[in-house]
Each structure stands twice: as C-alpha cells, then as structure tokens.
C-alpha cells in the first residue's frame, strides 16, 4: 500500500505556516505527520493528513500551491538499526528522496519515505515481509 502525502509551498513570511494549519483545522483535516523543509526563500511543508484530497482542495481554494504525492509509510519496530535494515533491502534498487518520522501511540514507529520508484520499493519491501500502510490505516493507528 502507499499513502498520499500533501505538500504545500510556503514563502518565508511570518504567520504563513499558521495560515496553512488554520485552513486545515477549519476543514477538519487532521494532521498525522509533518515535516518542513526550509530554504532561505521558501519552505515546503509535507504532511500526512486524515483526508488528503479534501486538504488539497481547501488549500488550493485558499490560494496555496499544493500537491499530492504517493509516499511509502513503513512500520518499523522500536529498536536500534531497524530503519537501517529496511533501507538496506531497497538501497540497490531505488533512491530515497526524503524521509521523516510519523508517531503513533502503538509500540511500533513509522517512517515516511519518498522514493524514486515507489512500485519497486513496495515490491521489495513486501518480499522482505515489511509492511507499508495506506492513509486509512495510518489514521487508525
């Protein structure tokens, strides 16, 4: 399974992040994970949310540049080296564009991966018995 990531372009301006979040709040879109990549001029806010399509729609209406992208959300046990082992399975097939963590209240952790070839990555992971989650599944964690 793959999940939808909602990303938003935000220029470096005071209060801009808050504006994005309040649009999502007013439309009852819940944040499951967040990562903010920043440059000197602008930032890219990457989100896993409860309703990605709805989130994109309401942000576009509010004048934000945003897009949905398929990402892999991988469940990993809380132990040293777990993420490294997962990446090792795929490292010769795909490259990781970026990654960030996703917290759950369960014993396992999750990591969000954007990879160069999502299908290959997913196949390799599943052959190795590693589970990837859909948006719905993440929401239920």
């Amino acid at each position, binding site marked *: 399974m793959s999940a939808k*990531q909602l*990303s938003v*372009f*935000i*220029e470096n301006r005071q209060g801009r992040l808050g504006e994005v979040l309040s649009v999502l709040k007013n439309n009852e879109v819940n944040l499951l994970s967040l990562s903010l*990549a920043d*440059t000197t*001029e*602008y930032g*890219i806010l*990457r989100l896993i949310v409860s309703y990605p399509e709805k989130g994109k729609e309401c942000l*576009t209406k509010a*004048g*934000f*540049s*945003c*897009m949905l*992208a398929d990402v892999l959300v991988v469940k990993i046990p809380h132990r040293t080296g777990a993420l490294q082992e997962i990446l090792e399975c795929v490292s010769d097939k795909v490259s990781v*564009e*970026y990654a960030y963590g996703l917290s759950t209240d369960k014993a396992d952790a999750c990591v969000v991966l*954007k990879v160069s070839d999502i299908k290959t990555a997913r196949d390799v992971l599943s052959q190795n018995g590693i589970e990837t989650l859909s948006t719905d599944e993440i929401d239920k964690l």
Partner: protein
Amino acid sequence: MIWNKEMECASREEMRKLQSKRLVELVRYVYERVPFYRQKMENAGVRPEDIKGVDDIAKLPFTTKDDLRDNYPFGLFAVPQRDIVRIHASSGTTGKATVVGYTQNDLDVWAECVARCMTMANVGKDDIIQIAYGYGLFTGGLGAHSGAEKVGATVVPMSTGNSKKLTTMMVDFGATAIACTPSYLLHISEVLREEKLLDKIKLKSAVCGAEPWTEKMRGEIENRLGVKAYDIYGLSEVMGPGVACDCEFHAGLHVCEDHFYPEIIDAKTLTPVADGETGELVFTTLTKEGIPLIRYRTKDLTSITREKCECGRTSARISRFKGRSDDMLIIRGVNVFPSQVESALVDVEEVTPHYLMIVDRVNNLDTLEIQVEIDEKYYTDEIRGIEKITKKIAHVIQQALGISAKITLVSPFALKRSEGKAVHVIDNRKYD
C-alpha cells in the same frame, strides 16, 4: 578652463542662428534619406521647406524609443552600412534592443562633446583617469574613454566588475580622476575605507553619470573622497554620455546645444513649456549622420535655463533630473523596463505572468529582486525541482535585462492584483 569657447560661450543669437541653419539641413537630410521620417512628415502635413529655423521645430513630429524598436535594427539609419563604423545598443522596452550606429564624424563629435565635459570636470593632460563604466554595447565606457583621450588625459580603461583591482591601481598609478556611476563610486569609497587606502589616493575629479543622483549623494562622494564630483548626462539614442555636464558652479548641466537641440514639453499635451518650468526633455540631433533623431522624447523630466552661467558659458542648462515620464528604471546604470521582465516571463511556463520588482540599494549597490508566482501546475514537493525553476527564471531575466536579479518564488495569488494599473515595481532606493 573651457574646451571650445567659440561654441560654449557663443551669444544666444549666434547659437540660435547656427542651430537654425543646422536644423534646416537636418530636416532635408532625413527627409531624403530615411523613409520613416519622410512618411511621418507627410502624415503631419509638413514639408522640409516649412522648417526655416528652430522657431518652426514644433511643426515636426516626435520620435520615441518605440520608433527605434519598430525599425530594429537599422531602419532609422541615414547612411549605408559602409559608412557606419560603430554600433551601440541599449535596452528596449521589450525584447529588442535599441540600436544606434555612428559614422566616423559622429564619433568625432561625440569625443568633442565628452572633451567639453571632461574640461568642465577639470580633467586634462596632467590627469590619469580611470574609466569605470562598462565597456561594450553600453555607451558609457567607450564614450567617456574617447573624450578623456581627446583632452589628452592618461586613460585607464578599467570597465566595471573588479573593485579591488580598481582601488589598487587608483593608488599605485596615482589616478587623479575617475568616471563611473555615482553609486559605484560610493561603493568604491567603502572598499577604499576597508582597505585603509583613503589617505593614499590622489583623486580630485569624479565624472559621474548614467543614473539619477542627488545633491546629497554628491556631498557624500565629495566628503568621503575629497574630490569634486560632476554630473555628466547622455543617452545612447542621442549619442551617449556627453550630451550635457555640469561645471564647478553646479548650476545645471550645460548642453552641447550646437549638436543637440533641447526642448522641454508638457508630457501630456506635448506642447512646449516656458524656460524654468518642468517638463519632458526632447532632443533633436543637429549634426548626427548615422542615426539622426528628430524631437526624440527622452522621458526624462527637467527644466531648462538659457541664462549665462557664472563659469562664463552661455549654453543652455538643464536642471538635475526630477524623474521620468515613463516607468523606466536605472539599475546599476542599466536601463530596465518592467515590460522587459513581463515579456521574459511569458516564455517560462512554470510561472504566472504576475511579478513584482523590488529595487533597493545595499552598501551603495543597487539590488533587484523579482517575485514571481509559481504556477500551481508546476509546483513540486522537491526542493531541487523548485530550485530548477528559480534558476531557469534567473537565466531568462539575465538574458533579457543584462543584469542579474534575485528570483523569489511566491504562492499563486500572493502578488496583489490591483484594479487598474498593476503595481509591478517597488523602488526603495533613497535619492535625497
């Protein structure tokens, strides 16, 4: 010192007679040689014989920068290519440059005019002058160069871009004069201060131009460097630097009016205004052979006086410029039109045509930032994707304007859409 007493100190009556004689010849010359002018005069119902002197000049139609663009590149030239010995070009209002051509005689006249300015600025045989305007298509470098050579100065063709080499040579050569933009000279003074060279320079004259500046900037330059700073004016369409310059009394810029006939008009009604009143400066090139201009609208706002100056010159003087009647900006000495940015952005599909130019002056150097709205369709969640778009725009802008700009991408609709005239420029530079 006065370079050409006969012309610079002629009585008003003598000058008017000479101008009238030259105007009559010029009108006949362009009517016979340039189809564009003949057509324009026919449309206005005026024949060459209707022009008997400068009193009749208002009968002639105006020429604009758009006319030069429409006749790009050589359409307004009055001589065959074999007689053109040099080409210069400046920014046009859109993609196309404004191209001018010079005959050998034009170059000689140009050097003569600049020589008068250099003499006004107290530059002569005993001086070593660094020319720190750009050399190339821009008229500043080569224009100032030839006039400085004509007065017999030792000319150091520095061009622009290497402040450190400039300050080193200024000290090592014992340069006594410099020609550059006033903002660049202020920057140079900072470099000299940082390198603790201020007490080692021998500079006495600065010939500054190619951008608007104020009395306050002059004071600043004179205080920091211990020089006298002079204001030289010109525009490539008319000739280049040397059309006018101010003398040590700083009471307006003396126009080389035996070659360039000045008028001041009301930019709205296009009718002449009285001496002393502010309006748009219009020039007719009285002796130019390559690309003569009839009543060329400079879009520069100023006023004129024909009173005799304390320096002894009788030539008409134009006051310090009070602005422009169009939206042209001068950034780092380069003419920039917002419309150039607009037409450059049309070719970049990743952005909308909405933009905002922010001009500022940081450490005495002009900065240009252009904010552009990213088109939603091309937004990407990867930073390298966005950097690629930014680089593409920066390249297109550099190609179009000839100067670099900092590109800032903003969200769609982040830039204000105003009813009526859109705001495309914020100029934060302080001129007073």
